């Protein structure tokens, strides 16, 4: 049996101070990620734990006309209970796909977004929404576009050692959104991935088109998106075929099962634009 030291700071300043003293300590918010590989009788947590449950700054939600800011320790259930239009529908649909209601009562947005082992359900939606994440460490606060949490290989790379403190999500109008989860739904397995789409049209011309896909790796192809933008809707059969081919080709880095499914999903998205 392994026993860890638990630290329970009560302010953000204290969190950062403790982190400075204990650079190896693990942050504990909802705990669902830390506990997900543990089915034994006794828990085996990292030797030093900084529990974030009592840090008020991480529990705040601020709403303006143009964006919503959500503290990293706000739970997924609390986000889903915010009043209508306070959270983009794309994110809400993605979060409803996470595990079960009781797990969503524990799991936090920060935990969901800053997991290092893989991408979870919120990333594709937040990437499509061009959300910003604030990371804090001893040197101060850094805002990072959520798309940048993925490195060049498409692997998760949140800033090392820093604490994700809040997420700022633009509130915009979207004409078409879609979230589809593939693979094992209730548990983030190797074949689990989430597909997100957000599109907007002005006078029959596609003015925004964003498509993100992530599981163990992420995929967002800005150059293909740029080619699709500005097209007149509905797309014709030739355009549809061509973009489908672009996406399928770019997806060659994905494992075979996910590659096929990504292709199928892209076709679903292009079908939507061709009608």
């Amino acid at each position, binding site marked *: *049996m*392994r*026993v*860890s*030291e*638990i630290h*329970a700071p009560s302010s953000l300043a204290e969190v950062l101070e403790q982190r400075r003293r204990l650079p190896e300590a693990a942050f504990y918010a909802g*705990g*669902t990620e830390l*506990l*997900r590989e*543990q*089915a*034994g*009788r*006794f*828990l*085996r*947590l990292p030797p030093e*734990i900084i*529990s974030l*449950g*009592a840090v008020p700054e991480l529990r705040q939600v601020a709403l303006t006309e143009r964006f919503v800011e959500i503290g990293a320790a706000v739970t997924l*259930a609390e986000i889903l209970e915010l009043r209508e239009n306070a959270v983009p529908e794309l994110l809400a649909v993605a979060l409803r796909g996470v*595990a*079960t*209601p*009781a*797990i969503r*009562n*524990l799991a936090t947005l920060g935990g969901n977004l800053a997991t290092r082992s893989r991408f979870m359900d919120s990333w594709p939606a937040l990437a499509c929404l061009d959300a910003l994440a604030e990371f804090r460490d001893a040197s101060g606060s850094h805002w990072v576009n959520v798309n940048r949490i993925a490195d060049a290989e498409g692997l998760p790379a949140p800033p090392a050692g820093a604490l994700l403190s809040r997420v700022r999500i633009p509130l915009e109008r979207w004409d078409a959104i879609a979230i589809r989860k593939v693979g094992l739904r*209730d*548990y983030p397995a190797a074949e689990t991935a989430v597909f997100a789409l957000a599109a907007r049209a002005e006078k029959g011309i596609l003015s925004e088109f964003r498509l993100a896909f992530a599981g163990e790796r992420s995929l967002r192809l800005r150059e293909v998106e740029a080619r699709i933008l500005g097209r007149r809707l509905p797309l014709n059969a030739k355009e549809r075929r061509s973009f489908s081919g672009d996406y399928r080709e770019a997806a060659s880095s994905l494992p075979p099962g996910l590659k096929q499914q990504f292709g199928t999903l892209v076709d679903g998205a292009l079908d939507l634009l061709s009608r």
Partner: protein
Amino acid sequence: MTIHFILNGEDVSMNATSADRLVDLLRERFGLHGAQADCRRGTCGKCLVLMDGRLAPSCLLPAFKARGREIVTYEGFAQTDEYADIAAGFAEAGVECCGFCDKGKILAAAAVVERSSRPTKEEILAEMAEVPCRCTDPETLVRGVQAAAERREGRRYRRASQ
């Protein structure tokens, strides 16, 4: 470490380590067997408790997470009017469980009727994904939760009109 919290309405404290899960402490230290430690992964719904009024799998709660919180177990919930509504609603609809998942289903039903006075089939079944036991016919379960919600509304209305 010593952890103080409120358990079924009473101030309590316990000694625990970071290796202890709340579900085991409830069972072994407090003799509360309503929560069972089955999957230990938060997926079977047999260890559900209410933490600060919200459903939580107590197997995914290390002891320190209970500090300063209010925990209500099935045993505590069984003393409430809300419980009586659900038990009566389930009985009225003829909900039958295997005798293992019923406590989780009752707590999940409580979460549904707390949120919605006239829950839809979809809402109910989404919440019931919490307790994925093969034993219960979903249709009867939906009727049971709806009957419980009606009873609860009826009781509130009667109270208001008194």
